[in-house]
Structure formats: C-alpha cells, structure tokens
C-alpha cells in the first residue's frame, strides 16, 4: 500500500480533503442522535411551533457537527530506544526492574519522563506500551483500561464483525489507544477491510469514522465497492466528491488528467473514472445503467 507522503501529496488534515470527507459522511440526524444505552429516564415531550422546531433542528445540526469531528489519522509511531546510563556493576543487585514516572501535573503526557532501571543496571527510557500503562495508572482517563481488553485481538475482532458492531469497536478503540499506536492503526485497518469485503459501508455513514475509512480506501485504491454502494443509494454528489478526492491523492492517474483537460462533471466524471481506474468495471456500469433507468422512469412518470 502506498505511504502517505506529506511533501507533494495532500494529507488527511488539509481543508479541501476534510471538506470532501465531511460531505461524504452525510448528516442523518436520526442515526447520530439515536438512543445510547444510558440510565433510563422518562421521555420529555415539548409542544413547539414550526419556527421553534426549525430552531431546534438547527441547534441539533450544530451539535451533530461537533459529534462528527473526525479522529486523527497519523503514521505509526517510532519505537523508543534510548539509554540514559549504563551501570554494569549494579548487575545482580535487583531481580525485577523499576519503572519511575514523573508525576508533575503541568507536564503534557507526551513529554513526561518515564524511565526504567533494568536488573542489569541499564537506565533506559520506557517503551511506548510501558508509557501508556504508567500514564493510565497515575492519570486515569475514562473509558481506558491499564491492560488493553482482549477484544482487540484479531481472533476476537472476527466475532465483533459478525455482529455488525464496527462502530462500537471503533469507539472503544479511540478511547483505549493513542492515535499513532500500532494497535489503533491495526484495529482500524481490520475494521475497514472487513467493511470493504462485505460492502457494509452504511454502518459507518453519518458517524465520525466514515472519513477515516474513505481516506484508507482511496489511498489503497479500493474504492469500487464504495462507488457501487453510493450509486445504488442515489448519492451522486458523494460519488463526485469521492472521485475528486481520488484525483487529489493520485494526480498522475489517467482519469485525473482527462478530467483536468475536459473539465467533466457528474455522470461523465464517473464514466471516465470507471473506464480507466476501477477493477469491477462491469458492476459499476450495471449500477450506473440501473440508476439512469430509474432517473428516466421517475422523470417520465
């Protein structure tokens, strides 16, 4: 899979990219504010005029935008490998290692000093896993456990995917791991691969994970299933956004050049893209035909 270079290629945090991803995420208020498992309270009913209802909907849209802020997509972190002191004559004094954590409250967690004195006398900086554990012990964060739950192992993720609970496991993953830890990246990639394999794109639509999934698929050029799904649900704007994003990330591909020359819009853009870039040409052509027929019959009737 091609690496995301920051020099020439656009990155996840660029405004244009974020706009495209946000438009594709959709804003289904019913799904964003669906009832979360909480302590039971009796429902409150309000009597409102049309104007008040519009205001309440606007406020709900603002809150939904906050809920749909995308979690960061970062590269995997480099392992820490720094020795501060070597005192070989201390070998044999202790049997187990010491882990020292700096508990100064005003220091950000990334810059905290966490050192390990091994039984062979070496004083080294702690590894990322040790750091995460110590920080969780002394500065506990809600939703995070000291030892990561067993559900994040590959054999148990399969069970989660069979129950269609991709969104829940991704929320748990965000709570448990740092965005640049290898576990976070691995869980996310497994989830996206499973969704792409079974074409369950709608599970993540209107959640904050949709943008990350689209970014992953576009970087690995596996966008065909997503295209078919969008055409079948009559989301033509989303297809144009997806193809624009693809051209931004892979400017050297043929359909990007043709689009720039011809300045194509809408269905023509999709047709050019399908001819040059996709693997499942036949399926996408069929879906397009069905869509055009549906449009024809609806305009005729």
């Amino acid at each position, binding site marked *: 899979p091609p690496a995301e270079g920051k020099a020439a290629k656009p990155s996840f945090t660029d405004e244009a990219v974020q706009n495209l991803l946000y438009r594709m995420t959709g804003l289904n208020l019913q799904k964003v504010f669906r009832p979360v498992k909480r302590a039971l309270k009796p429902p409150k009913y309000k009597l409102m005029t049309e104007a008040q209802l519009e205001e309440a909907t606007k406020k709900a849209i603002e809150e939904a935008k906050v809920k749909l802020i995308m979690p960061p997509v970062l590269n995997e972190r480099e392992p820490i490998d720094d020795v501060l002191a070597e005192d070989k004559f201390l070998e044999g004094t202790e049997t187990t290692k010491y882990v*020292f954590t700096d508990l100064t409250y005003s220091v950000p967690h990334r810059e905290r000093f966490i050192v390990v004195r091994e039984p062979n006398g070496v*004083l080294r900086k702690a590894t990322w896993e040790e750091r995460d554990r*110590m920080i969780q012990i002394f500065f506990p964060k809600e939703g995070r456990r000291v030892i990561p739950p067993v559900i994040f192992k590959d054999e148990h993720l399969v069970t989660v995917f069979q129950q269609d609970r991709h969104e829940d496991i991704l929320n748990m993953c965000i709570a448990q791991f740092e965005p640049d830890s290898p576990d976070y990246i691995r869980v996310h990639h497994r989830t996206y691969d499973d969704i792409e394999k079974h074409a369950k794109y709608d599970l993540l639509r209107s959640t904050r994970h949709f943008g990350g999934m689209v970014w992953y698929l576009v970087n690995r050029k596996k966008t065909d299933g997503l295209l078919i799904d969008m055409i079948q649900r009559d989301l033509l704007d989303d297809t144009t956004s997806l193809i624009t994003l693809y051209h931004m990330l892979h400017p050297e591909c043929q359909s990007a050049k043709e689009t720039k020359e011809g300045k194509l819009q809408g269905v023509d853009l999709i047709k050019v893209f399908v001819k040059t870039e996709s693997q499942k040409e036949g399926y996408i052509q069929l879906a397009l035909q069905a869509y055009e027929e549906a449009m024809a019959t609806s305009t005729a009737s």
Partner: protein
Amino acid sequence: ALFAGNRLLKGYRGGHVVIRFAMGGCTNRPFFRIVAAHSRRARDGKYLEQLGCLDPLPNAHGERVAGLNLERLRHWLGCGAQLSRPAEKLLGLAGFLPLHPMTVTGAERRRRRAQETVVPAADVSPGPGDAF
C-alpha cells in the same frame, strides 16, 4: 472537639524537613509513600506533602512501579529538606540524583561474597571500585 485541637497544633523543638518513605498497606503487603515531613513526626503520621509512591512488590509485568513528583521534590530540596538513605538510593536508581555510594558498595560486597562461595581459596577480588 477540645482534644482534637490540642493534638493538631503539636509544636516540636528543633527538627527539620525530611523526604522519606511512609509505609502503608496491609500485612505482608507493604506500600511506600514518598513524603516530605518533619523529622520528629511519626513515620506514618501527619506530613507536609506527598511527593510520590513506590510499590515494592512486582506487578503482573514484573516491574516495581514508582511515581515521583519531580517539580515538588525540587521545591522541597530547594527549601532545604534532607533525604533519608532509602530515598537517596531510590532517587539514585531513578537517575534524578547520582548513584548512592552505598548502592555501589553493596553491589561490590554482594559480588565478592558470591565469588568467595564459588572460589573459597586464593580469592583475589578485582581492584577497588571508585566511590563517589
């Protein structure tokens, strides 16, 4: 109510601030708090400030966890606090202070005793290590 006020305002003659370990925990399960207190106070009594903790028993990952609030430690050391010997040794192991000479001497003595049991006769131990 009356006698609580009496106990709280205990005044001592002399004494100084020390940074030492206060033991807590249960039977066969010690737990140390690194604490700045007056030297004349009881070991587990009223302290000025807690500066960290140390769990002497290894956890599931085989490590002994210790936390040290270095900023407050520097503050108390700047106020002229003294350290107890185990506190000095711990800070030496942590790297905050240079290694305590007794740690080095202890290691040498242990090695010498181990060599003596292995080779009881004609035992010429290596030259003296440099104490700081």
